[in-house]
């Protein structure tokens, strides 16, 4: 076979391949167009919709609480120093529900932030805590009896060890925007009278101990309420 004849055969094969490709492309295009036409035909039916012209507003509530001192009191930030048997030292604090939700089951708990001593672990010889609420600020003199400017709640009196073990309930409800004023008293039982001889303290002494107290007020959200209209 000559070189001319070989070249002519190759050109003929290339022409045939191009024709086949054109045919396949045409079939595919036709098929796609047909599917498109058919599909659009399915969704071309009538439909209607309705919606609220003014968007429905939905917000979530907040459950927030703050703790601060009251009036001229430094609150819990002031050291209760050198407590002796029979001493009672009272600090004044206030708790505010600053959220938008009402609270429930307001409690107070105590925890140690340093080494545990008999001050908070001994329910008999250790610190005795008394907490009383007032709906308005307390007024007091340094040694006088504090006076509630509103209505007092029931006093909660327990050893510090009990406040550590179980949070004590202060109020069943706590309305949003409300403030409760508390006087928190710490004392050592007068029964701790210890006699020291030559600088030696008795075994199990309450003398010279220290504690670092963290007070935690906690409230739950009010019960969830299903609302069907308003």
């Amino acid at each position, binding site marked *: 076979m000559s070189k001319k004849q070989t070249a002519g055969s190759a050109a003929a094969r290339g022409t045939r391949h191009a024709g086949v490709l054109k045919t396949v492309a045409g079939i595919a295009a036709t098929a796609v167009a047909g599917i498109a036409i058919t599909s659009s035909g399915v969704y071309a039916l009538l439909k209607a919709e309705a919606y609220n012209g003014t968007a429905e507003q939905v917000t979530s509530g907040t459950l927030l609480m703050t703790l601060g001192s009251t009036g*001229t009191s430094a609150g819990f930030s002031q050291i209760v120093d*050198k407590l002796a048997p029979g*001493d009672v030292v009272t600090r004044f604090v206030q708790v505010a*529900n600053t959220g938008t939700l009402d609270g429930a089951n307001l409690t107070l708990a105590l925890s140690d932030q340093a080494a545990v001593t008999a001050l908070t672990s001994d329910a008999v010889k250790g610190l005795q805590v008394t907490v009383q609420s007032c709906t308005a600020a307390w007024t*007091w*003199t340094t040694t006088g009896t504090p006076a509630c400017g509103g209505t007092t709640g029931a006093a909660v009196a327990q050893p510090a060890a009990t406040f550590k073990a179980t949070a004590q309930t202060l109020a069943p409800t706590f309305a949003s925007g409300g403030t409760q004023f508390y006087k928190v008293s710490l004392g050592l039982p007068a029964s701790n009278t210890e006699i020291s001889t030559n*600088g030696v303290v008795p075994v199990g002494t309450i003398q010279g101990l*220290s504690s670092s107290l963290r007070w935690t007020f906690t409230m739950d959200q009010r019960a969830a309420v299903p609302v069907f209209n308003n």
Partner: protein
Amino acid sequence: MAATRRRWAAAAGAVLALLAAAPASAASSARAQNTPAQLVTAANWAVVVVSGTSPATTPGPPATFTSAVGIPAYLTLTNLGNVVPGTMTLTGRAGLTLLGNVQICLDPWSGGTCSRQLTWTSAVFTANGSPAPPDPGQSWYLKTSGLVVVGGTMSAVTAPPAARTVNS
């Protein structure tokens, strides 16, 4: 196999039941705490008497001493606590007559003389009396008179201070 499948099904049911119950206990709560923590300390009303003229830094046994005519003995009484005791009682044994034989100086004795001598009429010192027990960290320097032959021990016995009521 069937029994195994039943057990798996029961376990899965229990898990689903727990998950279904979870929202009831997932209600929110809020807390408020004091920062920093409130510091509370207890008083210490311990006072010690030791032999010699160095202020004591640790508790010790009753101070022992011997003195004779012309040879006094020196003791030091130190408040190791952090408060003035409600009462402090000095007790002596074995021949020590406190009022007659002991002099108290607010400074160390120097050559047998005292620059600030304390006048005392009772071995029981009260916090609101005169003189009151020493302040925390303060020492009293005691000297036996040496007028007679005495020897024995001396102790300091302390009781807590009066109770306070503080609102602040």
